[in-house]
């Protein structure tokens, strides 16, 4: 495959039709009637900067039966992503320079997307003692995002210190907001449906109280903070208030919290078991509006693969989490484009430029313009597809199987290399 090609007749986010010329991993021209050895007809396809996922569980090292860096980034490429941030809850936990460097090098070896390891905030995700954040930041992996995701940094003193400490290297803490005492044994959203189903509730206030505390802490120490997977209308209100006050907070929402509700739990099908839990229709509406109006900055997948045996069981015994990489763009399109309420420019922000900015990813999320790194995704917005269980992920716990979703990723270009072409994964990664 040539490293010098022209994407012919693409539709840019703003709506104009152009050609994009790529050479040696860079966009070298955007204009009309461009020519190269290889011409690729992209009529009708929307060209956006390659997507960046700030919240992916790649599971390696330790849980390779669920996912590996290779299969996870292959899944990412099929979803239009050119970068993923790998969460720290591996085994061993990514709480040392050694582990984050290993994950980063596995990403380079795979070659399907840029892999940015996220470092744990505390040793072993135990919430007791800060991990060596500086060592991870200064390692070859150059970690900028730190999170105990899966667990909340619930001790207010540890949280305060972490927020302050990462300022030394322009890092950011990504908080999994879950008050642990309020969610002991929690199985699903606490509300009218949990009352009927007899499942222990995960109350909205357990998320909102931590977010409220942490935005105030961030204000007090003048630090940046990022809130993972907002799931409630109340959380949206707190973030809106904090932003109006000038607090440096950013927030993400997952595709599943933009589409699915706790009514699905009536089946007791544990594919719908996720943390934070699926909430109500009112919450979904509030999250969608907040993504459109900018209160929520980004979509992040929280792609959480689990092997069949972790889901093929009774609800209480099942693991929390669902797949998300290969369906995220379609759900973003549903919320922003099909609703008629927003634009492709906003979609590019929430899936690419904003997560790249929050994560400090220099070569990601760049505009489609001359001089940018050639990380590009091309989407057929008119296509619809029925989601099937088979995917590049090693796991099958997608909650969308059988649903018809809008749009399709046709090509994913990672630093000038087609990781996905005509919706087919490349045989090998970029090297």
């Amino acid at each position, binding site marked *: 495959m040539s490293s010098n090609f022209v994407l012919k007749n693409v539709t840019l986010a703003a709506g104009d039709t152009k050609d994009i010329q790529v050479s040696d991993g860079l966009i070298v021209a955007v204009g009309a009637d461009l020519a190269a050895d290889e011409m690729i007809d992209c009529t009708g396809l929307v060209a956006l900067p390659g997507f960046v996922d700030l919240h992916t569980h790649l599971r390696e090292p330790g849980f390779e039966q669920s996912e590996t860096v290779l299969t996870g980034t292959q899944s990412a490429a099929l979803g239009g992503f050119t970068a993923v941030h790998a969460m720290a809850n591996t085994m061993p936990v990514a709480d040392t320079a050694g582990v984050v460097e290993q994950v980063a090098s596995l990403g380079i070896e795979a070659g399907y997307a840029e892999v940015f390891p996220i470092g744990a905030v505390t040793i072993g995700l135990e919430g007791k003692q800060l991990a060596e954040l500086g060592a991870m930041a200064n390692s070859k992996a150059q970690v900028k995002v730190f999170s105990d995701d899966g667990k909340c940094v619930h001790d207010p003193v540890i949280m305060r210190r972490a927020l302050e400490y990462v300022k030394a290297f322009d890092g950011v803490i990504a908080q999994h907001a879950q008050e642990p005492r309020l969610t002991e044994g929690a199985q699903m959203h606490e509300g009218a449906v949990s009352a009927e189903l*007899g499942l222990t509730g995960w109350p909205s206030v357990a998320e909102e109280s931590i977010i409220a505390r942490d935005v105030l802490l961030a204000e007090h120490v003048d630090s940046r903070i990022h809130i993972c997977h907002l799931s409630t209308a109340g959380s949206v209100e707190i973030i809106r208030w904090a932003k109006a006050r000038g607090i440096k907070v950013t927030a993400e929402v997952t595709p599943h919290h933009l589409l699915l509700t706790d009514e699905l739990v009536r089946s007791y099908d544990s594919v719908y078991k996720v943390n934070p839990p699926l909430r109500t229709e009112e919450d979904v509406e509030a999250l969608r509006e907040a993504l459109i109006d900018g209160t929520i900055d980004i979509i992040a997948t929280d792609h959480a693969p689990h092997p069949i045996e972790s889901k093929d069981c009774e609800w209480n015994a099942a693991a929390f989490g669902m797949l998300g990489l290969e369906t995220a763009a379609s759900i973003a399109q549903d919320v922003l484009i099909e609703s008629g309420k927003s634009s492709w420019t906003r979609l590019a922000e929430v899936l690419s430029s904003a997560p790249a900015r929050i994560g400090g990813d220099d070569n990601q999320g760049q505009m489609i313009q001359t001089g940018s790194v050639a990380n590009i995704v091309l989407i057929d917005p008119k296509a619809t597809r029925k989601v099937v269980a088979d995917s590049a992920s090693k796991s099958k716990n997608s909650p969308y199987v059988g649903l018809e979703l809008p749009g399709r990723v046709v090509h994913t270009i990672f630093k000038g290399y087609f990781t996905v072409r005509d919706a087919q994964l490349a045989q090998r990664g970029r090297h």
Partner: protein
Amino acid sequence: MKNLLSAADLNRESAIEILDIAEEMAGVNDRDIKKLPTLRGKTVVNLFFEDSTRTRISFELAEKRLSADVINFTAKGSSVSKGESLKDTAQTLEAMGADAVVIRHPSSGAAQILAHSGWIQGSIINAGDGTHEHPTQALLDAYTIRKRFHGSDSVGKGLDGVKVAIVGDILHSRVARSNLLLLNRLGAEVHFVAPPTLLPSNPSNLNAEVHFSLDEILSEIDLDVVMMLRIQSERMNASYFPSEREYSRIWGFNAHRLSKLKDSAIVMHPGPMNRGLEIDAVTADSKQSTVLEQVTNGVSVRMAVLYALLSGERNADVI
């Protein structure tokens, strides 16, 4: 009907039909030879992942009186700690040719998972799933109420206009959930009475009137039935209420509160009772208490359910 997973599986007609069959089964239970050949050659497995001697022996007796081959499979602890999953257990029973599985499981929804997973072909009867439902308990309670109010004239009747107060740990009670659904279908009016900590935070989908004060409801509503729920020991040290003494004082049923009920009203308890906590001895042993009748009726009702689900002569659509 193939399975009984929830009281919601029954409509008014099918519920009354089961109660009517139970009347006939009660007749069998009064005979010298308490046995019918109905389920001869059928294998019924009592699959208990949670201790419950009472429910298990009630089912076992019902199965034996219908001449089924009975297997008791006790798998204590969750599938995770045990190392054998619900799926493997179910498939093992399927391989042995179980015609029906009566399942008690600590996880809400376990019976539904078993019925809809494709792991097993036989009928599934929910004998209590976590804090979700216990439909045969609701049926035996409905049977007991109907019998007390309509006596030998019970057949074909619902529970229209009967006023029932269910008192205690509503939040964690599978008995309360199943009773609510079934009592509503049979035309009864249901009141929940509990400390706010032991009620669901959002009861809007539950068709019951919620009260915090037992004394208030006793003075304001002409109750026909008071159903006391057991307080599980694990609630006692988890700040749901300050002390057993305080709980007993405010929400326990005692001789004084019994005197506020009309003579025809009954006091029920699914057992086992914590005497002196949610119910005092005077009430438990009074003529208005139906505790032992509930046990007796449990066998008849479970025979009726097994008969309705398993006996080949019946049209599957009728029940």
